[in-house]
C-alpha cells in the first residue's frame, strides 16, 4: 500500500496542478482550490496518522496554492513535524514551508526553534545549512534570541565546513539586521575579519557582506578589515583570469567578491597608511585600465561582470573624493558609457555621474557632457533613463549653464512622462530660483512652468514665486505686466489665476498707468476667470478685489456691485459668502485711511530655505502630501468653520460695531492681508506626517504666523530612535483626558503643558500651551509629534503653530501656543506622542508626552428611543461585536459623576431606556474619514459589590475593544 501511494502521491500533486490549469474561470479555480484545502485539512485533522510522504505531498500542494495568492492558515504544525524528521526530504520540505509561510505564532516558533537547535547541534552540514537558512529567511526576534550565541561560534570554529561557514555568516548578518541589540560583538570580531583571508572565495564573499554591515555600525572595531580587503582585492584584480577557477565568471575573476570588497571599502575614508593606499590606488587604476582593454568575450555576461566591478570602483573613487586624477578618469569613463549602445550602461553612467557632479574636482569635467545628457533626455526611449538624465542635469547645473538647462528641462516637460512631471516642475522651480541673476527670467520661467504643466505645479511653487516677487521690488512691475499678459490667454491654468490675482492685487497699480491695463481692464480680466475657478481661488480673488478697492478707488463702485450680487452674498459656500459680506462692509464703512492701512502692501517675507526644496526631498519618499489645511486665524467659530481643505479665513475682522473696528482692524491687519496669501505659511509649516521614516515626525517649531520660516529646527534629527523612551506616565495621562478636553497635560519644575481641544466628527483641533515656569529663557525650543507606525495610517495630524515668538526661544514666564489639527482616518489604538526639546541653562531637555487623542474623541452622540436602542442592540449580536468587562470601582460610585463621565466620553446618555433605572445606557457614532461606527453601551453599577459591568456593542471588533479599554479606566 505505501509503495502505491508514494508513486501516485506526486502524481496527485501533478493532477491537482493540471486541474487548476484546466479551470475555465476564476470561480472554478477557487472552487477546486477550496475543495483541495478542505481535503488537506481533513487529512491533517483526521485520526489516521499520515506518513511523512503524504505530509510532504500536502505541504507541496499548500505551497502551490499559496503561490496562487490564497491565504494558507494551517499546515504549519505538519511542517514543523516534517522539519523535525530525520529524513532529509521531509526535513527540507518542512523548512521550506516555514520559510515561505512565516507565521509569528509563538508556540509554533518555539517548536521550530527546537528543531533548529537539534539540527545546528547535529554536526551534519546539510542539516545545519537547512537550519541556518531557515533562521536567515525568517529572521524573527525569537530566533535571534535563541541563536545569536551559537551562530558566531559555528562561524569561527576551525572545523566548520566551508558551506556552513558561508551560511552562518549570512545568518548572523540577517540577525544583526533584524535585532542588532541582540547580536553580541566581542572576541569573535577579529576572527571574522580574518575570514577575508579564507581560502574559499564563497566564504570570503559571505564574510565581506557581514563585515560591511557590521562596519557601518562600528567602523572602529572593523578598521583592520581595510588593509585585508585591499590586499584581497589586489590579488583578485591582478590575477590571471584562470587563477580563480570556478569563481571566474565569463573571464572576469570573482566579480561579486570584488564588488563586495569595494563596497566594504566605501565604509571607510581613504586608507591612511601609505602602502595600503598606494596598493588600493593601483587596484583602482588597474580596474580603470581593464575597461579600455578589448573584451575577452563578446558575451554580454562578460561585459556586465567587468562593468559591475568598474562601476563599484568608480563609486569608491567618488566616495574617497581625494584623487583628482582618478576622479577625472572616472568621469571620462562614464562619459564613454553615456554613449554606449547598452541601455543599462547609459542608465548607470547617468546615475554615477550624478554623484560625481557634486565633487569639486570633477564638477567641471561632468559639465563637459552636458550636450550628451540633453540629447539623452530627447532621444532615450526608456523613461527610467530619461529620469536619470533629468537628475543629472539637475546635479550638474550651476550659474554658468542654468539658463540652458532650465530651458531644456522646460522643453522636455512638454512631452515628459506624466509620472515624472511633478518632479521636473519642482526641479525647474528650484534651479530657476537658485541661479537667477535676473529675476525677470525667474518670473518668466515659473509662468512658463504653469503654462506647460499647470496641473503639476504644486502649491509650494506658486507660493514661492509670490514670496520672491514681494521681496524684490525690482521685479514687481515686470511681474504685474507679465501676469497681466499671461492672463489674457483665453484658457489659462487656475494656478496662473492665483498668481495673477495675488500679484495684481499687490502691484496692479504699477501697470495701471498704461491704458491697455487700466484698473477696470485688470479687474474685468480677473473677474472673467472668476466663475471658472475653484472655491479657494475665488476666495483669493475676492481678496484681490478688496485690495483693488484700496488701489483703485475709481472702480470701487464696480467692485461693490460684484460683491453685492447674490452669487456672492448668498453663495452656498460659507467662506465665500463671509468674505463677500465682510469685504463689502469694509469697503462701505472704512475711511480711505483705514482702508489704506488695512489693505497695505504685504511686508517682505523673511528669507528662508525654499519650501520647494523640502517638497522635492519629500517626493523621494512615497509619502503623499495630504490636503493641507491652510493657516487659519483663530476665531470663535473655528470648529464650525469649513472642513474643506483650503479655507482661507478672513474673519478676524468683525464689522458689527463700527466703533471698535479701527481697533480691531489695527490688530487684524495681518489676518486680513495674510488671508490673501493663504499661505505660503500653511504650505511649509504643515508637515507631512506620512513621511516614509518611522516613526513619522512632524516638526512644529514655534514661528510667527506672519513669518514663513520653515520648521527646520532639526527636531526630526534629534528625536531619539525610540520615541517612547521617556514617555511620561503614558496611559495615565491619556486616561485623564478621555472624558474631558481641557486641562493640564503635563507639569514639572520647568514647564507646564496645557491643552484645550475640540472635536467635531472626524476632525479635531488641539491647542497646546507651553508655559515656561522658570525665569530663564528656553532656547532652541522645538516640538514634534510622533505617530507610531501603525498609527500613521489611521490618523492624520496637521500641525501648525501660532505664536508671537519668531525665534525658537521661550522667555521666562512666557507661554507659547501651538495648534494641532487632527483628522481621524480610521479607528486606531495608540495615541500619538508629543516630543519637546529645548535648552535650559545649557542642558538639552527632552521630554515626551502622550497626546490624549483617543478614539472616543470622534464620537457624535446619538439620541434614540428605547425601542430603537434595543432593536439596534439585537442587530449587533455577533460575538465579536460585543465586549464586556467587569471591574472594580476605583472612584466613589456617584450617579451624577458617572453621568458626566459618560457624556464626556462622547455618547448621548439615554434616559429611560434601560428597565433598571440605576443602569446607564449610551449611544453614539464614531466618525472616521473612512467609516462610521455606531456604538451602543451599557454600564451596570453594583454598589454593594463596588463593581461595574460595562458592555459595548459596535459594528467593529477593534472599536468595541478600544472603547471598552478606555471607558473602563474611568470609573
Amino acid at each position, binding site marked *: 500500500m505505501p509503495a502505491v501511494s508514494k508513486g501516485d502521491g506526486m502524481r496527485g500533486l501533478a493532477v491537482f496542478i493540471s486541474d487548476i490549469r484546466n479551470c475555465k474561470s476564476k470561480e472554478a479555480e477557487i472552487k477546486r482550490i477550496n475543495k483541495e484545502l478542505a481535503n488537506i485539512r481533513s487529512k491533517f485533522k483526521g485520526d489516521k496518522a499520515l506518513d511523512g*510522504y503524504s505530509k510532504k505531498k500536502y505541504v507541496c500542494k499548500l505551497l502551490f496554492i499559496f503561490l496562487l495568492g490564497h491565504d494558507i492558515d494551517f499546515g504549519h504544525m505538519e511542517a514543523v513535524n516534517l522539519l523535525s524528521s530525520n529524513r532529509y526530504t521531509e526535513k527540507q520540505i518542512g523548512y521550506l514551508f516555514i520559510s515561505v509561510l512565516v507565521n509569528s505564532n509563538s508556540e509554533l516558533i518555539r517548536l521550530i526553534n527546537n528543531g533548529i537547535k537539534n539540527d545546528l547541534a547535529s554536526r551534519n552540514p546539510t542539516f545545519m545549512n537547512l537550519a541556518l537558512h531557515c533562521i536567515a529567511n525568517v529572521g524573527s526576534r525569537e530566533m535571534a534570541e535563541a541563536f545569536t550565541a551559537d551562530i558566531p561560534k559555528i562561524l569561527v570554529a576551525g572545523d566548520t565546513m566551508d558551506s556552513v561557514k558561508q551560511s552562518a555568516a549570512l545568518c548572523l548578518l540577517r540577525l544583526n539586521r533584524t535585532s542588532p541589540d541582540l547580536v553580541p560583538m566581542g572576541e569573535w570580531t577579529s576572527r571574522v575579519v580574518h575570514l577575508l583571508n579564507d581560502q574559499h572565495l564563497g566564504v570570503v564573499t559571505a564574510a565581506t557582506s557581514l563585515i560591511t554591515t557590521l562596519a557601518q555600525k562600528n567602523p572602529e572595531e572593523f578598521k583592520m578589515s581595510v588593509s585585508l580587503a585591499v590586499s584581497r582585492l589586489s590579488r583578485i584584480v591582478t590575477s590571471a583570469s584562470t587563477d580563480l577557477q570556478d569563481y571566474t565568471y565569463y573571464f572576469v575573476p570573482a566579480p561579486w567578491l570584488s564588488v563586495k570588497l569595494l563596497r566594504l571599502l566605501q565604509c571607510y575614508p581613504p586608507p591612511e597608511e601609505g602602502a595600503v593606499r598606494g596598493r588600493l590606488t593601483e587596484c583602482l587604476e588597474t580596474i580603470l585600465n581593464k575597461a579600455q582593454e578589448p573584451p575577452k568575450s563578446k558575451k554580454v555576461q562578460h561585459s556586465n561582470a567587468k562593468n559591475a566591478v568598474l562601476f563599484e570602483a568608480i563609486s569608491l573613487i567618488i566616495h574617497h573624493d581625494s584623487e583628482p586624477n582618478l576622479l577625472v578618469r572616472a568621469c571620462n569613463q562614464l562619459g564613454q558609457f553615456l554613449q554606449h549602445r547598452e541601455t543599462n550602461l547609459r542608465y548607470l553612467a547617468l546615475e554615477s555621474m550624478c554623484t560625481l557632479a557634486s565633487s569639486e574636482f570633477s564638477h567641471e569635467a561632468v559639465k563637459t557632457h552636458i550636450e550628451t545628457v540633453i540629447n539623452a533626455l530627447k532621444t532615450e526611449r526608456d523613461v527610467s533613463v530619461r529620469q536619470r538624465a533629468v537628475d543629472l542635469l539637475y546635479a550638474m547645473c550651476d550659474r554658468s549653464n542654468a539658463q540652458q538647462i532650465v530651458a531644456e528641462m522646460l522643453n522636455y516637460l512638454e512631452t515628459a512622462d506624466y509620472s515624472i512631471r511633478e518632479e521636473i516642475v519642482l526641479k525647474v522651480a528650484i534651479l530657476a530660483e537658485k541661479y537667477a541673476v535676473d529675476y525677470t527670467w525667474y518670473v518668466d520661467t515659473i509662468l512658463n512652468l504653469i503654462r506647460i504643466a499647470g496641473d503639476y505645479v504644486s502649491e509650494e511653487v506658486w507660493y514661492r514665486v509670490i514670496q520672491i516677487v514681494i521681496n524684490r521690488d525690482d521685479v514687481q512691475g515686470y511681474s504685474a505686466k507679465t501676469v497681466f499678459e499671461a492672463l489674457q490667454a483665453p484658457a489659462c491654468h487656475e494656478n496662473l489665476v492665483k498668481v495673477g490675482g495675488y500679484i495684481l492685487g499687490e502691484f496692479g497699480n504699477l501697470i495701471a498707468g498704461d491704458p491697455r491695463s487700466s484698473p477696470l481692464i485688470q479687474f474685468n480680466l480677473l473677474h472673467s476667470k472668476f466663475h471658472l475657478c475653484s472655491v479657494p481661488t475665488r476666495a483669493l480673488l475676492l481678496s484681490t478685489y478688496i485690495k483693488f478697492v484700496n488701489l483703485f478707488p475709481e472702480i470701487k463702485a464696480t467692485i461693490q456691485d460684484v460683491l453685492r450680487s447674490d452669487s456672492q452674498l448668498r453663495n452656498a459656500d460659507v467662506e465665500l459668502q463671509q468674505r463677500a459680506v465682510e469685504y463689502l462692509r469694509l469697503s462701505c464703512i472704512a475711511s480711505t485711511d483705514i482702508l489704506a492701512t488695512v489693505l497695505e502692501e504685504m511686508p517682505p517675507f523673511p528669507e528662508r530655505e525654499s519650501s520647494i526644496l523640502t517638497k522635492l526631498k519629500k517626493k523621494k519618499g512615497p509619502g503623499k502630501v495630504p490636503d493641507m489645511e491652510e493657516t487659519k486665524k483663530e476665531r470663535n467659530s473655528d470648529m464650525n468653520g469649513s472642513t474643506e481643505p483650503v479655507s482661507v479665513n478672513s474673519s478676524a475682522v468683525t464689522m458689527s460695531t463700527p466703533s471698535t473696528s479701527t481697533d480691531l482692524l489695527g490688530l487684524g491687519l495681518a489676518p486680513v492681508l495674510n488671508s490673501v496669501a493663504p499661505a505660503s505659511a500653511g504650505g511649509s509649516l504643515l508637515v507631512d506626517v506620512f513621511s516614509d521614516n518611522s516613526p513619522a515626525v512632524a516638526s512644529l517649531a514655534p514661528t510667527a504666523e506672519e513669518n514663513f520660516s520653515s520648521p527646520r529646527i532639526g527636531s526630526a534629527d534629534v528625536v531619539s530612535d525610540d520615541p517612547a523612551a521617556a514617555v511620561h506616565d503614558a496611559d495615565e495621562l491619556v486616561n485623564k483626558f478621555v472624558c474631558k478636553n481641557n486641562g493640564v497635560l503635563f507639569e514639572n519644575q520647568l514647564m507646564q503643558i496645557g491643552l484645550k481641544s475640540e472635536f467635531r466628527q472626524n476632525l479635531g483641533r488641539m491647542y497646546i500651551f507651553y508655559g515656561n515656569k522658570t525665569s530663564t529663557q528656553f532656547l532652541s525650543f522645538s516640538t514634534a509629534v510622533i505617530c507610531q507606525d501603525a498609527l500613521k495610517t489611521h490618523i492624520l495630524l496637521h500641525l501648525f503653530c501660532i505664536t508671537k515668538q519668531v525665534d525658537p526661544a521661550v522667555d521666562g514666564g512666557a507661554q507659547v501656543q501651538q495648534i494641532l489639527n487632527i483628522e481621524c482616518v480610521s479607528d486606531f489604538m495608540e495615541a500619538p506622542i508629543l516630543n519637546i526639546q529645548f535648552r535650559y541653562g545649557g542642558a538639552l531637555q527632552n521630554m515626551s508626552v502622550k497626546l490624549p487623542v483617543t478614539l472616543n474623541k470622534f464620537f457624535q452622540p446619538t439620541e434614540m428611543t428605547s425601542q430603537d436602542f434595543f432593536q439596534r442592540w439585537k442587530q449587533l449580536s455577533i460575538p465579536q461585536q460585543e465586549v464586556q468587562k467587569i471591574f472594580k470601582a476605583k472612584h466613589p460610585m456617584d450617579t451624577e459623576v458617572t453621568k458626566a463621565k459618560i457624556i464626556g466620553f462622547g455618547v448621548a446618555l439615554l434616559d429611560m431606556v434601560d428597565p433598571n433605572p440605576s443602569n446607564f445606557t449610551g449611544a453614539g457614532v464614531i466618525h472616521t474619514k473612512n467609516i462610521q461606527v455606531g456604538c451602543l453601551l451599557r454600564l451596570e453599577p453594583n454598589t454593594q459589590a463596588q463593581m461595574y459591568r460595562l458592555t459595548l456593542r459596535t459594528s467593529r471588533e477593534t472599536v468595541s475593544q478600544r472603547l471598552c479599554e478606555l471607558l473602563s479606566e474611568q470609573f
Partner: protein
Amino acid sequence: MIKSILIFNNHGKPRLIRFYQFFPEDMQQQIIRETFHLVSKRDDSVCNFLEGGSLIGGSDYKLIYRHYATLYFVFCVDSCESELGILDLIQVFVETLDKCFENVCELDLIFHVDKVHYILQQVVMGGMVLETNMNEIVAQVENQNRLEKSEGGLSAAPARAVSAVKNMNLPEIPRNINIGDINIKVPNLSPFV
C-alpha cells in the same frame, strides 16, 4: 540587500515568490501585481533597472529584472547592491536552473517548486548573495538529489509527473528560443494557470 525575488510569467502568474522582509500575504500578492504591471509594459530593448513600485518602498528600491522567454525574473534590491552584479546573479540562477533541469522551462518551475526554492537558497540567503560559483551550486543540488534517492527514490515521481504532462499536453513540437547563452526550451503551451 535583496528584498524580494519574484518570478512570474508573461501573464503575471507567479511562479516563485520569495520575500526576505516580512509582508502580509495579501500585500505580497499586491506587490506581485504592481511589479508585473511595472515590468511587463517595458519592451525588451529598454534597460533592466527601474525604480520600485510604491508598495515595496518606492525609489529607495530598484527592480532589476530579466525576461526569459515566458518568464520574468525580478529582484527587488536596495541601494547597497550593484545593479549589474544582481543582473548577473539572475543569469547565474537561471543558468543553474538550466543545468539542473536540462533545458529549464516554465513547467519545471511549477512542478518542482521545492527544488527551485532549494536552488535559489544556494544562491541567495536571507537577502544576501550566498554563492556565485555555479559548479558549487550544482554540486549542492546533486548532493541533495543523492540524498533523496537514498531515501527511497521519491524524487523520481515528480519527474515522471512532469514528463507525463509534457508529453500529454503538447499540441505542437517544442521550439527552442535562444536567449543570451542558454537555451530555454519553451513548450508552446496555452497560457498556464
